[in-house]
């Protein structure tokens, strides 16, 4: 077994283990930390596949952005030290069955598809090529999705502010009294 295959198996085991822990852990803060390690493992998998730029973007956006955002919202909405409530036995059984059958079905289909990849290395994927093709106006350029995504990010930013802004609601107090 070559050293590259060995590294792949270590990365795969790390990703799957931390992913599984992050969906089963009872303390929510630890679940977020396991999610962070899972994202780091996926970035390592991109490095293993020689896509350095994607790996860097993965670390910056997921590890530095989304997981930190999730941890902030945990701090805003949770009492530290309280465990999550245990899911009911029936729900765990059915979710396990659904996940196992779905996995078996998908993996059998993938095996039947017989994707004989060549697996040769890409000829020096450089950031310059990515940038040129992304902003090119020619046939294989991605300038239109690039602009659409920038609009989407602007809309999401404004939408977040509008949703999360604090508005003085006179009827919300009555609603809370009714709840409690």
């Amino acid at each position, binding site marked *: 077994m070559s050293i*590259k*295959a060995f590294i*792949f198996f270590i990365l*795969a085991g790390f990703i*799957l283990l931390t*992913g599984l822990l*992050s*969906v*089963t852990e009872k303390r*929510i803060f630890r*679940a977020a930390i396991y*999610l962070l390690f*899972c*994202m780091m493992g996926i970035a390592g*998998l*991109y490095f293993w596949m020689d*896509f350095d730029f*994607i790996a860097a*973007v*993965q670390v910056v*956006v997921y590890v530095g952005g*989304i997981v930190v*955002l*999730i941890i902030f*919202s*945990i701090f*805003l*909405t949770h009492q530290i030290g309280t465990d999550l*409530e245990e899911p009911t036995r029936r*729900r765990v059984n059915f*979710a*396990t069955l*659904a*996940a196992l059958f779905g*996995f078996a079905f*998908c*993996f059998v289909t*993938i095996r039947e598809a017989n*994707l004989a*990849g*060549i*697996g040769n*290395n*890409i000829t020096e*994927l450089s950031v310059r090529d*990515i940038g040129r093709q*992304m902003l090119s106006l020619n046939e*294989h350029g*991605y300038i239109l999705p690039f602009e659409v*995504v920038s609009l*989407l*990010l602007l809309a*999401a930013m404004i*939408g*977040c502010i509008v*949703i*999360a802004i*604090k508005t003085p609601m006179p009827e919300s107090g009555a609603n*809370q009294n009714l*709840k409690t």
Partner: protein
Amino acid sequence: MEIKLIQILFVSTALFFIGVFGFLTRRNTITMLMAVELILNSVNINFVAFNKYLYAGSLDGVFFTLFLIAITAAEAAVAIAIIINIYRSHKSIDIEDADELKW
């Protein structure tokens, strides 16, 4: 031993269904959001692996991955804004407590 495409697809499929399992068992909205992040990441692994093994020489998988990461960031930000708003009005982020729209 050479790593084939099928082994990478095994990892991404397993990660996808780990995310599905978490989405079905968790009742806390933040942990459900974390399960959705796992699902989206498994899709990204698929795009990159297909680009490397089946279409070496073109860059389309890279672009799809980059756009998906951007869309995921927007989705997570909006979801967390909604979660904070639910917490403000219900004092809880359990999915069973926000059942006003349930019929």
